[in-house]
């Protein structure tokens, strides 16, 4: 096939559940590519000599190579190629914001739609998992060193997976009763089936990683306890798990949830199966979700599936500024979520039992760009109106959890409470302690957290082999690396 022919193939859609059907169940929305569709899509890749797509992937997957292997029908080899640098492809293929990462750099995207890199990655990963024959990597000979990983989100899991391959003993400490971080308690089943996360966790346990659930570091043991208990290094990947509120009147009424609470009840505690499972969640008629990111979309779509008649998404800017993945915005719209854009809640109104019954909102218009480059929303005077509802889900963001820093006096944090770490190495201010993912970056993405986990594993390995490594300054970043970061 010559490039011209390749360019003529349209981007292949993933078959998915119909909107009216899926809005009533918790099953995964897209079914994934069939082999035939995957082959077609793989043939769209031009196999660039200098593949620009790779610049957009924080873990540097060799994209043209794995796509070529799929095109040739060598799906086994394809997944092995991906796994050389990405240990959670089934997850990334589903939740990476591809349109602003790898796919935004794809050359095909200049003229037509970019190659569906994420969907192909997902195809290869699912192919392997469904076959039940997941290949175990070889482990380096034991080094006798022990590393503690605090938090089992994508950052912690990635660091753990890489470190055990390097021959170190790895123990993960997780506060909740299931490993996976946001992947299990935040992102809903219909977007990321929990079975997939569990398979990845089981795989790590199979490699010999010890996982201690129900262990809140900072409460049970502190970082110092772990270091004096014989751990040679620690990676902190505790995420951005502390929900933010707007501090407007009525926010503590019954029926006003943080997105974390709403999603945790539904995902981790399976409240959608109440009363078979014991954890309850609101039965709602009219729901307002406040926010415009992935967390807000997930909350809104969960509320629909829990039976709400109307779900409003209240966002203070316009659709273009929404930080959510475009695919999820599209899915939410198709399913019937009502977008109240350029709107901001100013107070919640309760009844005599303290239950929320209405929200007062204000319309906004876009003014001058702010620091983030997005146009700042400004309230329009006299535009206030109230809307009846019975449930509110606040999804305006998450801050860092202070439990670890507050019990580790010599661990530096910034003004917002995020742990200070050099992203080149993930080194913190405390000797032997590394950190990455959302606890360092603030709420970011799965793939960036995984990228940090990789960098940290490499640094920890270097440090364990030669403790003097800690005192040497990190090498200057190469210009190419810089470019990647800017992407």
């Amino acid at each position, binding site marked *: 096939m010559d490039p011209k022919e390749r360019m003529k193939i349209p981007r292949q859609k993933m078959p998915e559940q119909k909107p009216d059907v899926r809005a009533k169940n918790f099953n995964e929305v897209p079914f994934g590519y069939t082999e035939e569709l995957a082959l077609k899509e793989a043939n769209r890749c031009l196999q660039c000599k200098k593949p620009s797509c790779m610049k957009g992937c924080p873990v540097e997957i060799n994209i043209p190579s794995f796509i070529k292997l799929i095109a040739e029908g060598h799906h086994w080899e394809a997944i092995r190629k991906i796994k050389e640098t990405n240990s959670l492809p089934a997850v990334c293929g589903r939740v990476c914001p591809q349109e602003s990462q790898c796919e935004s750099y794809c050359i095909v995207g200049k003229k037509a739609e970019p190659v569906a890199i994420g969907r192909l990655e997902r195809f290869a990963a699912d192919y392997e998992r469904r076959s039940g024959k997941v290949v175990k990597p070889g482990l380096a000979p034991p080094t006798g060193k022990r590393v503690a990983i605090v938090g089992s989100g994508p950052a912690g899991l990635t660091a753990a997976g890489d470190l055990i391959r390097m021959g170190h003993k790895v123990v993960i400490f997780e506060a909740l*009763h299931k490993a996976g971080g946001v992947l299990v308690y935040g992102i809903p089943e219909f977007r990321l089936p929990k079975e997939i996360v569990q398979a990845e966790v089981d795989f790590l346990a199979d490699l010999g990683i010890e996982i201690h659930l129900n262990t809140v570091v900072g409460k049970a043991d502190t970082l110092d306890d772990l270091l004096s208990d014989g751990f040679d290094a620690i990676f902190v990947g505790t995420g951005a798990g502390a929900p933010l509120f707007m501090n407007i009147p009525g926010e503590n009424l019954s029926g006003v949830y*943080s997105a974390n609470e709403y999603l*945790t009840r539904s995902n981790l505690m399976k409240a959608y199966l109440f009363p078979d*499972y014991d954890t*309850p969640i609101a039965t709602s008629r009219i729901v307002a979700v406040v926010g415009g990111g992935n967390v807000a979309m997930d909350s809104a779509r969960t509320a629909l599936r829990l039976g709400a008649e109307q779900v409003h998404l209240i966002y203070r800017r316009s659709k273009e500024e929404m930080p959510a993945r475009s695919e999820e915005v599209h899915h939410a719209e198709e399913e019937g979520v009502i977008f109240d854009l350029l709107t901001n809640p100013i107070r919640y109104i309760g009844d005599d039992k303290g239950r929320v019954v209405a929200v007062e909102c204000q319309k906004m218009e876009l003014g001058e760009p702010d620091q983030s480059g997005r146009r700042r929303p400004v309230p329009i005077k006299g535009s206030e109106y109230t809307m009846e509802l019975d449930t509110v889900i606040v999804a305006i963001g998450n801050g860092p959890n202070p439990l670890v820093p507050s019990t580790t006096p010599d661990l530096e944090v910034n003004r917002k409470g995020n742990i200070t770490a050099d992203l080149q190495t993930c080194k913190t201010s405390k000797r032997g302690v590394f950190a990455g993912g959302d606890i360092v970056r603030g709420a970011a993405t799965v793939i960036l957290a995984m990228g940090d986990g990789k960098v940290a594993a490499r640094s920890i390995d270097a440090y364990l082999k030669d403790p003097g490594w800690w005192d040497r300054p990190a090498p200057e970043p190469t210009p190419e690396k810089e470019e990647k970061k800017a992407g």
Partner: protein
Amino acid sequence: MHKIVRTDTLAPSMFLMELEAPKIAEKRKAGQFIILRIDEKGERVPFTISDSDTARGTLTLIYQVVGKTTAQMSALRVGDSILDVVGPLGKPTHIENFGTVCCIGGGTGIAIAYPIAKALGGAGNTVISILGARTKDLLFYEDEVRAISNELLVCTDDGSYGQKGLVTEMLKQLIDRGEKLKMVVAIGPVPMMKFVARMTKEYEIPTIVSLNPIMIDGSGMCGCCRVSVGGATKFVCVDGPEFDAHQVDFELLTKRLATYRDKETESYNRYKHSKEECKIGRG
């Protein structure tokens, strides 16, 4: 898995459970709690650590049966296990030698006040304890509390045991007889804590209460345990569970506790019903 090594009935619907959790037993301090999950379908439910035994590696929980989970717990026997236990959670009680302190436990609150009174006594305070219950049968832990207190006052609402009256009346007696109370710790039903707080505010006695909102994770992640203290929103699981009683918005706490009342009742009734069917089936 955490094996249950002892169970006991303290009063009708009031039970004790001692279970294995060596790490938590070693680390825990007065005022802290755990969250447990009985089985895969279970809720995450918080309980104060009433006592611990580091040699045996066990924790003692005292609980009242009010809904499904606590009913399930009361049906467990020695040798059975609890699936998940996480802790110790929350901030420990601030313990120092204040002088004379009064610890008040009402109903289930006795279980929560006990470890705090014990720790305060251990730090050299003169501890005067007040225990209150609706009626004689509901009173428990009297001997245990007496053993760690310099003085103990007991009252019941109906006068069936101890003095007849409410804990606030006992507290008033102490104040009237001229006790210089440096601090009051009051733990029990929300209305009780509210009335104690109202009284001690009048007499300007610093007062601590331990709050019991609905919780999920217990590590500051969900915000479901939020309360208002001095006008600011606090997360009880990480900022508490103990707060300055004079600053707490008890109304809000009561209302938020009622959020799931209908569903909890539904769940409990289904459970009771299924148990009854079991019995009929067996008979």
